[in-house]
């Protein structure tokens, strides 16, 4: 099989684990993996590292969602009515 990519274990492992190889290159690389210790090792570490990183994913706290909604609504209202304190100013004497 024709070698499609330069031999760079870091870059290739990164692309492979991110699922960014085309099908043809992926097939070549998977064959290559069975023969190359360096690429095998880097792919194994990258795959594990990705799992660890994914494990760190967190959902935003519900309170923060509410706070953001409130802040955006307030900001939208200020854009229309002016800042809140202006609405409480005394009318000027004529």
């Amino acid at each position, binding site marked *: 099989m024709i070698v499609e990519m330069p031999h760079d274990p870091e870059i290739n492992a990164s692309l492979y684990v991110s699922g960014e190889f085309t099908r043809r290159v992926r097939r070549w690389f998977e064959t290559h993996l069975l023969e190359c210790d360096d690429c095998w090792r880097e792919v194994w570490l990258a795959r594990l*590292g990705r799992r660890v990183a994914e494990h760190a*994913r967190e959902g935003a706290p519900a309170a923060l969602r509410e*706070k953001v909604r409130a802040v955006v609504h307030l900001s939208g209202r200020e854009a229309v009515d002016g800042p809140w304190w202006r609405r409480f100013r005394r009318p000027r004497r004529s």
Partner: protein
Amino acid sequence: MEDEFLRETMGCMDLVYNISRRLVRSEEDVQDLVQETYLAAFRAWGERRRPRKVDPWMATICLNLGRSAWRRRSRRPTELPLGDIETMPALSDPEGEALAAIDRETLHEAMWRLPEEQRIALTLVDLAGFSTAETAQLMGTPRGTVLSRLHRGRRALALLLNQDVPERKEAR
């Protein structure tokens, strides 16, 4: 207008929160950064600067805010050598059990010990789900640089689990 904006952007809240968590350290700063991101986006929305894709747009705003003003205000993170990260004992079930044994805070700390550029590349690709090409655009760096940073970050996190790389024969 607020309702339309919130309807389009609230789906990005987890994304913005996860990016913020890797840009500023304390939970208070994270919450402030998330709010600032939404306010900046809302202002742009009001000026009819609306994106084709909301996710990368919100991520860019968050990254820009986080990397400029907020980073100056927050205490700069201590980037310790990776050797200092406490590793977990190797377990019989190679990955799943070891992963389960790591509590969220340890993992969060481990990510903070990565150099900032690696941490951001990891966050954008593995947590936020952007492609490496999109990440390169967001970070303003060549794609090859992102791929290297991503790999080094992943490798450093993998070493946390202290697992031996299996022989190729075993996996065949």
